[in-house]
């Protein structure tokens, strides 16, 4: 039995990070993510960790990468304007395969936008924000307890696959407070230790796949293992090598280390989908409206369910393609003009109608508004 608390989503991220063994935070406070920096500043010193408020967002990201190279789990949090600034070094973390967790609590954008209002406008930026072909993992929580669980999962995924993981939140989930039950102590929770080399230091090749997972062991700096960290295309040694074959080998491994393991990485939730003839797809804070709208539609005899992607990227292609052979229509609801929607359309490939319920006016949709959209999709179909 744990302790029951009323907690904000941002604070649950802090607790999730501390419980997973994150011991470094570098960042610059920005609404609506500030409570994460504030919470980490309070909590890290209590557990022997370090908090660094950097001069800007770029330095915060750099410091997290540095901590991770030294073998300490690092995290930073930001919102859209800061997330834009972090993109360059996020690419370095992808290329050099440095585990780290970046939280983006979305607000209305572009630019300064509306700091205290909800939006999901950064969905495509989390996938394609940094330049070049690259692969990242993005997960998005819908509730405060899930903020805790998914922060832990983000740490685990980043350590398992040696890549940045973005925890994509929004102002709704970041700022709302609800019930959460936390363990009295985090001692018994897994801390996701990093795979380190078992060979002698002189035999260590930092980017050699030694066990078939395509994820090389990572030696912390200062442990006697020498290796070279570079954003240039590199071979197994870590030193730059730009031949066509070295480039292809490197790119293939960076991609397939994730795409080979989609069953582990992709998480989804289905709500009242068992006998559903129609599906709503929604994620993050926007999905909270969908639960109530689905319940209201069911009360009127409309067989609709909610399919909620928890992992946003890599895209749940197989799952959504599968959905398109089960239901007669899909309604995608997101707090932007249609970003995830584009991917759903692509996966469904014209098999069934896919409609977009876009909301981009600073406020979440109400269940009543969404019910109307569901009725439009189903043509008022009743059981």
């Amino acid at each position, binding site marked *: 039995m744990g302790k029951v608390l009323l907690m904000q989503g941002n604070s649950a991220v802090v607790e999730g990070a501390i419980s997973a063994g994150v011991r470094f935070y570098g960042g610059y406070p920005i609404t609506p993510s500030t409570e994460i920096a504030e919470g980490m500043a309070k909590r890290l010193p209590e557990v022997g960790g370090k908090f660094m408020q950097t001069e800007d967002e770029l330095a915060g990201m750099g410091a997290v990468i540095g901590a991770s190279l030294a073998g300490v789990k690092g995290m930073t949090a930001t919102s859209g304007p800061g997330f834009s600034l972090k993109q360059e070094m996020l690419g370095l973390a992808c290329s050099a395969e440095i585990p780290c967790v970046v939280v983006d609590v979305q607000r209305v954008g572009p630019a300064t936008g509306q700091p205290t209002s909800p939006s999901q406008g950064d969905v495509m930026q989390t996938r394609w924000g940094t330049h070049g072909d690259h692969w990242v993992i993005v997960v998005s929580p819908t509730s405060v307890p899930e903020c805790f669980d998914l922060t832990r999962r983000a740490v685990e995924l980043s350590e398992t696959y040696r890549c940045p993981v973005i925890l994509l939140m929004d102002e709704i989930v970041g*700022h709302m407070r609800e019930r959460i039950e936390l363990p009295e102590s985090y001692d018994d929770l897994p801390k996701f230790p990093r795979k380190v080399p078992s060979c002698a230091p002189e035999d260590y090749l930092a980017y050699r796949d030694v066990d078939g997972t395509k994820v090389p062991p990572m030696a912390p700096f200062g442990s006697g293992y020498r290796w070279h960290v570079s954003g240039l295309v590199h071979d197994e040694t870590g030193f730059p090598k730009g031949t066509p074959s070295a480039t292809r080998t490197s790119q293939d491994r960076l991609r397939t280390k994730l795409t080979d393991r989609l069953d582990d990485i992709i998480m989804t939730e289905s709500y009242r989908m068992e006998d559903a003839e129609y599906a709503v797809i929604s994620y993050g804070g926007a999905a909270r409206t969908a639960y109530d709208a689905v319940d209201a539609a069911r009360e009127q005899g409309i067989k609709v369910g909610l399919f909620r992607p928890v992992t946003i990227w890599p895209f749940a292609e197989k799952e959504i393609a599968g959905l398109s052979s089960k239901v007669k229509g899909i309604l995608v609801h997101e707090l932007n003009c249609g970003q995830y929607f584009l991917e759903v359309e692509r996966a469904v490939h014209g098999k069934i109608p896919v409609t977009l319920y876009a909301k981009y006016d600073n406020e979440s949709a109400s269940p009543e508004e969404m019910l109307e959209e569901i009725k439009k999709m189903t043509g008022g179909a009743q059981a």
Partner: protein
Amino acid sequence: MKQTFRFSGTGGQGLITAGIILAEAALLDGKMAIQSQSYGPEARGGSSKAEVIISDEAIHFGRVMHPETLLVMSQEAADKYSADCTPDSLIITDSLFVENVPVSAHRVDLPITRTAVSTCGKALFANIVALGAVAALTNCVSVESLTKAVLDRVPKGTEDANKKALAAGIALAKGVAKAA
């Protein structure tokens, strides 16, 4: 059963804190609760609102669309946040700041801030006075849980003043009940 609350006023009046305390009290009573808020980019001033939903069941959508109870602590908030009330809504207004409410509902006008000043010496305690009044008028949480939630949240050394503020708020509401 589900009850919905909206506390509105000016940034700095402690209404978001009041919302948090109410939700915490509901959890102490073993119920589900969710608290959300809306405010501008300003640190102080500007309109602010906190919303709380208390229910026996899981709560998904966290915003309050038609508040059953609306607390209004400024005229601007009355103008801005009362439009979606229903004729059955209970609107509690602070008589020091609110002259008129532009919707027809059950209005209870209470000297909330004046009571905070006369009881505790500071307008700062108005949010706790208001909480006492809200709890007494709606029976949404037990007095025991509310008292514990207040004391868990407030700075050390202010416990007695806050207890007084809460009792004064409850008494204000009981006075209204008697008059009615």
